[in-house]
C-alpha cells in the first residue's frame, strides 16, 4: 500500500510540473489554434537562466540563500516572458492569417533555434544545480517519503493554477481572454483588443512555463539543452488529455498524466511505459477527441 501512495506522491509532483507547462500550450491553442512547439524549449530556457542566477550569486560551493532562489525565479520569469512576446511578434503574428500549418512550421523552427541556442550558450553538457539550494528536509509518513522540494512543487503549482483559474474566470481581462478563445471576430466587435489578449497569453504561458522549467531543474538538480522536447511533448499530451484550449483541463490533464505515468511505469511495464502513455493518448482521442473537460465545439477548418 505504501508503494501505491509513494507512486501517487511522485506522480503528483511531476504532474504539477506538466500542468504548469501544459497551461502555456492550452492558452495559446485556445486563442490561436496553434500548437506552439517552441513552448517546451522556452521552459528549459527558463531553467538555464535560473541556474545561471543561482550559480553566479550563490557561490560555487556554499548553499545559496533563499532570496537567491527567489531572484532566480524572477529572472527566469521576466526573461521567458520577453522571449515569449518576441516569439509571438516575430514568428507567429505575421502568420496569423496564413494556413494554420505555416505557423506550426514556424514554431518548429523556433523550437530548433532555442534548443540549439541553449547549446551554444551553455554548452551541450548536462549542467548540475548545486545541492542545498532548497532545504534538504523530507518527511516519512507511514513508509511514504515526501521531500520539501516535492511538497513545494505540488503546493506552488496548485496555488498558481488556482490563481490563474480565478483570474481567467473572475476578472474583466480574463473574460476578454475567454471571449477571444471562443470567437475572435465577435470579441473584436465587442471592443476587445484581441492583439492585447494574445500578447497577454504569450506572457502568462511562458511565465508559468519558466516556473515549471525551474522546478524541473530544482527537483532533478540538472538541466540539459535538449530536454525541451520530452517535457514539451508530455505537457502537450496533458493539455490534450484534459481538452486542449481548456484551462482547467490542462491542470487536470497534467496531474492525471503524472499519476498515470507513475502507475504505468511502476505497475505495468517500465519497458513499455512510453508506449502505454501514447496508447492511452490515442485511445482518449478516439473515444473523446475533445479531451476530458473539452466541450464539443464546431470544427474550425
Amino acid at each position, binding site marked *: 500500500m505504501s*508503494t501505491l501512495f*509513494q*507512486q501517487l506522491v*511522485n*506522480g503528483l509532483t*511531476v504532474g504539477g510540473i506538466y500542468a504548469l507547462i501544459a497551461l502555456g500550450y492550452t492558452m495559446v491553442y485556445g486563442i490561436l489554434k496553434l500548437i506552439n512547439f517552441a513552448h517546451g524549449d522556452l521552459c528549459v530556457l527558463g531553467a538555464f537562466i535560473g541556474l545561471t542566477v543561482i550559480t553566479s550569486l550563490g557561490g560555487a560551493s556554499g548553499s545559496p540563500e533563499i532570496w537567491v532562489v527567489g531572484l532566480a525565479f524572477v529572472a527566469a520569469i521576466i526573461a521567458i516572458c520577453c522571449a515569449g512576446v518576441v516569439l509571438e511578434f516575430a514568428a507567429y503574428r505575421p502568420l496569423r492569417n496564413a494556413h494554420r500549418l505555416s505557423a506550426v512550421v514556424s514554431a518548429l523552427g523556433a523550437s530548433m533555434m532555442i534548443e*540549439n541556442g541553449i*547549446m551554444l550558450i551553455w*554548452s*551541450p*553538457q*548536462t549542467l*548540475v544545480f548545486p*545541492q542545498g539550494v532548497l532545504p*534538504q528536509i*523530507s518527511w*516519512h509518513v507511514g513508509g511514504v*517519503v515526501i*521531500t520539501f522540494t516535492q511538497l513545494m512543487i505540488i503546493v506552488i503549482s496548485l496555488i498558481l493554477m488556482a490563481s490563474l483559474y480565478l483570474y481567467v474566470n473572475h476578472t474583466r481581462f480574463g473574460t476578454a481572454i475567454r471571449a477571444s478563445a471562443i470567437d475572435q471576430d465577435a470579441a473584436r466587435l465587442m471592443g476587445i483588443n484581441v492583439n492585447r489578449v494574445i500578447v497577454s497569453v504569450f506572457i502568462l504561458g511562458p511565465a508559468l512555463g519558466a516556473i515549471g522549467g525551474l522546478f*524541473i531543474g530544482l*527537483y*532533478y*538538480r*540538472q538541466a*540539459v*539543452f*535538449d*530536454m525541451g522536447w*520530452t517535457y514539451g511533448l508530455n505537457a502537450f499530451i496533458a493539455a490534450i488529455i484534459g481538452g486542449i484550449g481548456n484551462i482547467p483541463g490542462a491542470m487536470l490533464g497534467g496531474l492525471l498524466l503524472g499519476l498515470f*505515468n*507513475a*502507475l*504505468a*511505469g*511502476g*505497475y505495468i511495464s*517500465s*519497458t513499455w*511505459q*512510453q508506449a502505454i502513455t501514447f496508447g492511452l493518448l490515442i485511445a482518449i482521442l478516439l473515444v473523446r477527441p475533445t479531451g476530458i473537460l473539452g466541450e464539443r465545439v464546431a470544427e474550425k477548418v
Partner: protein
Amino acid sequence: MHKKLAATLAACSLAIAPVTAMASGTVTFGVQAPITGKYANEGQGIEKAVKLLAKQQNADGGLIGKTIKVRVCDDEGKATQAALCARRLSNAGVFAVIGSYTSGAASAAQPVYARANIIQTSDGTADKLTQRGFKTFFRNAPPNSAEAKFTGNYLVNVRHFKRIAVVSDHSSFAKGLGDAVEKAIKANGGNVLTRAYIKSGSQDFTSVLTSLKSKHPDVIYFSGYYSDGGLLRAQEKQLGMDVPFVGGDANQNVAFAKIAGKAAKGTIIINVPAPENLPYKAAKQFISAYKKAYGSAPPSIYTLTNADGMRVIMKAVQETNSLDPNTVENYLHNKIQKFPGITGPISFSKNGERIGSAFQAFEIQADGSYKTIYPKQ
C-alpha cells in the same frame, strides 16, 4: 547497359580512390562525431581531443614529417548522417577517422571506410562492430562483453549478491550492456531478480524505483549513462532505499557525483580507471594538457579512448614510417603490443578488438573522488 554500368563503376572507383595528400606534406585525420544533438557533449569532446593531439604532434615536428590536418564531420549520432559523413571524409582524402561515438553511427560508416581503405577507430561498444570482418576498424574502448564478464563475476562471486535488479535505458549501448551483464550474472550462477527500464533523460525514475523497492533487491545494477545514473541514485536515496548501487562504465563522469549530491557516496562504478585516477603517465599529461587548452576536463572516458585510438594509429605510422593503410593496419593488428595508452595498455585482436583492458570496481567517496575496491591493490 553493362557497358554503362562498367563505366559508372570505373568513374566511381576513381572518385573514391583516396586522393593521396602525401605529396603536399600534410596528412589528414578525420573526426566523425556527434557535434550537435543529444550526444553533442561527447562528440565535441572527441573533436577537441583529436585537435589537441594534432596540435601537439605538429609542434613536435609532425607525423613522420608531415603536418596533421583535422577535418570534422558532424554525424549527429544518426546513421543517415554518418553514412554521408563517411563519404565526405573519404572524399576529402583522410588517412584515418576517429569516431564515431555511437555504435549505430559507427556501423553505418564502417563499410564506406572499409571500401576506401581508411582506418577507423571508434569507441562504439556494440559487440557486432568487430564481427563484420572489416580490417580497417579498430575499437578503442573495451566491448560490452568484456565489461559484462567482469561485472557478472564481481556481483555474484565477489559481493555475493543474491537478488540483483538490472536497470537499463533504451539506448543501443545501455541495453546491450544490460543484456550482457544479465547473461554474465546467470553464467556465474547468480539470480537476476528483475529487469527494468528507464527512459533516458526523462528525469523521473521514482516510479521504477518505487516498484523496485517493493521487490526488495539487494543491489541495483545500472547500465546506462551518468546523467540518468546520478539521478537514479539520488532518487533511490530520496525514497529511503538503502541498497547498494553499481553503475556501468558510462556512469563514470565527474557529473555523476554532482548530480547525485550526498547520495553519491558509496556508489560503485565499474570501468577502466577514471581519467583522474588513471595511473598512467600518458593520462596525467594528456588530461592536464586538455584542461589547459579548453578550461575543462574531458567529458568522459570516451574522449580518452578515442584519443588513444588516434595515438595508437600515429604510433603505428611512426613505427612503420609509412602512410600506406595496409601496412599500418597490419602493424596495428599484429605488432602493437601493450602500447602505453591514456586508458591503459593497448593491443588489438585480429578483428580489431581492443584486448587486455583492466576493469576495476571503484567506490565514490564523500568528496566525490574514486577509490578502487576491486581488485585489491
